[in-house]
């Protein structure tokens, strides 16, 4: 498969959507849906040829490779920069999630966006293209480029089509991610420089840099650069404050993509880059990272409970859930890592659905304030039932992906630190509190107003919701399909780290 074609498909689709808006405001929607569907189809058709055991590429003969596909051409040979994309099980599931949620996002904003729909969808698709690039790039410079590519259209999505405080939220989002991105760039450059001084060879390639042993304080600072960049995106506790504003102010599709996919790039970066590149430093840093994770879990849950804005509540619940991801990653054993990956997928689906619900509510009620809601079950039973489903999914009810994720993280963590696991488990309780209070304030209770004319979900919304529900149930009841894909990758990563740990 030509991996670049996926990205190009979305980029070109976005351009066409932009151009098409003059002819027919509906055309961009169909074009972007078509582009995503085409990419998804192409992707699935290509990976259908591979079973998870099949290997194509051996970057380092000493270790069995887990890469399924690989594409590499020179870009700036002078500095050893390549256009290098590759796909392994981990990237595969993330790419699949991206494409599915991309489609969901397009559908979710179908009748929400009236102003410049073409440009809107162009930005949407470009963000997705950037995210795909992030999930597949194996050249650190290219990775950084894609990292920025996904940022700018997202900024525009918030700044142009956002709600009341869009300028503030967009600026905050941009500053946080941009500054952290610059830190990462610095870290990448220093790493490449260290590699250069060690080997005399300029390279930004992941495989080359993997071999670079960074030591001492310099290595620690470089690691910290990566860590901050990724945890801002994730977001972890002290860096999360951009997220409630951005999520709340973004249009529905923006929130869906932001929560569903963009946050995962941070987690992906931690798994793919921070820990394998800096095993010793990360091991030393793990207690701090775990503390941040636990703080995030509890802090996010408490703040979610305190919110009156539906979208803010969901946003804080994301902070809480992403705490589990950090814990899973820094526990760094295969149970916890699988849990973290599963959390990425399950949280992507459940939170995207909740943001869609928020968008639908706002579309109908023109408010997100839960104090003005209540008793909506009566008016919109279908919406209420789906919201209930995703609320209980996000509080981690067994049988859905979120539970598998949280349980595995806790299980893996317990082996490392029982105390941390016990503290993180408090998140299960507080998750129940905010999820149920959210349902109570919106759909249950008595009617706040009686003269509402509300229309329930139609087939379009129900079918997207059904996709996500089935996805979550599938993840919860037969998660093995995902584990089979990601297991070899995570095994090789963790064995790499273990090797590095053994070699002082």
């Amino acid at each position, binding site marked *: 498969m030509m991996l670049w074609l996926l990205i190009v498909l979305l980029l070109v689709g976005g351009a066409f959507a932009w151009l098409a808006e003059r002819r027919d405001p509906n055309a961009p929607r169909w074009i972007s849906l078509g582009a995503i569907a085409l990419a998804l189809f192409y992707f699935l058709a290509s990976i259908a040829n591979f079973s998870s055991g099949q290997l194509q590429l051996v970057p380092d003969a000493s270790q069995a490779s887990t890469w399924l596909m690989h594409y590499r051409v020179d870009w700036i040979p002078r500095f050893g920069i390549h256009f290098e994309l590759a796909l392994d099980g981990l990237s595969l599931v993330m790419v699949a999630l991206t494409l599915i949620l991309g489609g969901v996002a397009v559908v979710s904003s179908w009748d929400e966006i009236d102003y410049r729909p073409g440009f809107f969808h162009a930005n949407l698709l470009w963000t997705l293209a950037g995210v795909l690039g992030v999930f597949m790039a194996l050249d650190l410079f290219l990775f950084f480029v894609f990292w920025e590519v996904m940022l700018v259209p997202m900024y525009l999505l918030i700044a142009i089509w956002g709600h009341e405080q869009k300028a503030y939220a967009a600026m905050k989002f941009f500053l946080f991610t941009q500054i952290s991105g610059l830190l990462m760039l610095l870290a990448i450059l220093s790493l490449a420089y260290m590699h250069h001084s060690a080997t005399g060879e300029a390279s930004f390639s992941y495989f080359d840099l993997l071999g670079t042993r960074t030591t001492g304080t310099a290595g620690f600072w470089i690691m910290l650069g990566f860590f901050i960049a990724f945890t801002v995106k994730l977001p972890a*506790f002290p860096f999360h404050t951009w997220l409630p504003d951005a999520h709340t102010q973004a249009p529905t599709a923006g929130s869906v993509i932001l929560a569903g996919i963009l946050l995962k790039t941070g987690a992906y970066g931690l798994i793919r880059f921070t820990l394998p590149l800096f095993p010793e430093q990360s091991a030393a840093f793990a207690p701090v990272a775990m503390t941040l994770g636990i703080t995030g879990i509890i802090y996010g849950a408490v703040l979610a409970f305190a919110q009156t804005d539906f979208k803010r509540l969901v946003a804080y619940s994301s902070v809480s859930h992403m705490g589990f991801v950090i814990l899973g990653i820094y526990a760094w054993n295969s149970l916890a890592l699988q849990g973290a990956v599963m959390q990425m997928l399950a949280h992507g689906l459940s939170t995207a659905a909740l943001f869609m619900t928020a968008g639908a509510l706002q579309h109908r009620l023109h408010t997100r304030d839960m104090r003005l809601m209540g008793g909506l079950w009566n008016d919109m039973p279908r919406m209420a039932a789906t919201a209930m489903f995703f609320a209980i999914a996000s509080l981690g009810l*067994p049988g859905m992906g979120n539970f598998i994720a949280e349980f595995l993280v806790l299980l893996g963590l317990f082996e490392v630190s029982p105390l941390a696991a016990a503290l993180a488990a408090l998140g299960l309780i507080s998750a129940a509190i905010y999820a149920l209070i959210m349902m109570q304030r919106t759909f249950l209770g008595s009617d706040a107003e009686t003269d509402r004319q509300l229309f329930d979900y139609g087939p379009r919304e129900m079918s997207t919701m059904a996709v996500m529900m089935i996805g979550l149930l599938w993840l919860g009841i037969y998660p093995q399909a995902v584990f089979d894909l990601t297991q070899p990758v995570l095994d090789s990563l963790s064995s790499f780290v273990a090797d590095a740990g053994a070699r002082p």
Partner: protein
Amino acid sequence: MATALVLIPLLPMLSAALLMIFGRRLPQQLVAIIGAGAVALSALCVLSIAQPFLATHQALQVQLWSWMQIGDFSPNFSFYVDGLTLVMMSIITGVGFLIHLYSTEFMQQDDSFSRYFAYLNLFIAAMLILVMADNLLLLYLGWEGVGLCSYLLVGFWYRDPANGAAARKAFIVTRVGDTAMALGLLLLYTELGTLEIQPLMTAANIHWVEGDGLAIVATALLLGGALGKSAQIPLHTWLPDAMAGPTPVSALIHAATMVTAGVYLIARTHELFLLAPPTLIAVALIGLLTALMAAFSALVQQDIKRILAYSTISQIGYMFLGLGVGAWGASVFHLMTHAFFKALLFLAAGAVIHCLHHEHNIFRMGGLRTRLPVVFWSFLIGAAALAALPLTSGFFSKDAILLAAWQAPGIGPLLWLGGLLGALLTAFYSFRLVFIVFFGELQTSPDKQPGWRMALPLALLCLLSLAGGWIGIPVREVFPPQEEQHAGFLVHVISIGIPLLGVWLAYAVYISKQISFQDAAASPRGRRWSQLWLAGWRFDDFYSWLLVRPYQTIARFLRNEPVDRFYDFIAAISLQFNHLLSNLQNGRLRWYATSMIMGLILMLILGMEGAT
């Protein structure tokens, strides 16, 4: 047989899914048939399994698929059926079916009929998974699933925010216990390397000796889960509030099945608990304490369902007492009989409520003996069984528990005495209920009579409550053998006599008025105590003070994101800096000249520094 086994939880599950998706478009009749029919079929499947099982006493195991497999962690979707499971399955599907049947009439007027049956079927499915699971993770799935259904059904009439609050309370309080239990699972897996129940027990016996610290911690954590689900001190506060749900729900979930899941869990993992004697003592003490505490609370309640709720807490306390003293079989037996008579009581109470325009206050009932004869006899039989009057089912099971307590080493007699006090109170409050509701003056007259769909379950449950004591439960293979119980004649007499004394006391107070508590109740101390009991020993206030209010305060304090103040601070500093710089750029030529000169001076100074 494997097919039947799979069908048992699958049928209610499918029915639930069907009703959730299409329920609102189906006619009520069909919904009732699907909802109750699925459980009936499921019950038949249980029968079809029970028959060969009782012949061979061979535990069944069916593996559906591998749930996940990561390294050594490989829980399956698989079922394990032995005697204990079979008892539970029979109760769940049997009593469950009766309650479904009853509900078809009870809920007739409700416009969310199909939603009700969807939830109820989902509950049955989850509960079946809970008891049939062969590993603790699958058990946990069912465990949380029933919690969810309990939440959904308690808050079924969602328009009243109080119901929603009760439902949330039920879910969150049990979730606290569940989290402890989840930690227990983590500990068990980490230490013993498996979550399959049978291998786990074997591994525990290999790795741990009796009194092992880890065993104590693990069982304590599991006990946490059991306490939450079974509404024992300190996690019992949700159950009285959970009565906000429809009465058949209270009968099914909050009396017969779900709340006994804790008992099931401890019975299921009894080998672990045997390795941790301190936990067992805690189980017994908590059980006794809960039994007494709830019985006292039941004495003064006025809401008919709350009385029954407290009595449920109290009876489960007895089960815990039994578990704590190692009377596994007796506890499970009491679980079963309690399921019969408590379901009967709830259904009868539901019938009263149904026929009296949703009246809950017992002091506005009275004299219903003649107006609702079917209900009266049902209630009377249920109360007799609850009070453990001789020859009723409750008598056999409670007697077995008390005897086991008497024989327990160490604090046994003390537990026995406490249990007797509880029995006295139980007899008193249950007949207080009977006498107030069904005797005396007619307060509110019923406007309808229960139809056959309500009467039939009542009749069958009457039968079970009376004769249930003779059912032998096939748990001998499950639990370690216990020495035959020989207690003194006096002990037997006392345990027979105490409930009778309680009934007589209730009669004397409420019918013949020979004894009056008026003066005692009117005295300040009496009022204080009765207020305390009415408020359920003020556990709610305590938790509100200890947990709820601090949590809300913290949440309110944090609401506006204090972390953001830090970033605001950074932003303010750069803004201030910006103001400063833009003030420098004030457009005045003279100022520019002056600043140039200042720069020049500075440069000269630096230059001279450099020169010297």
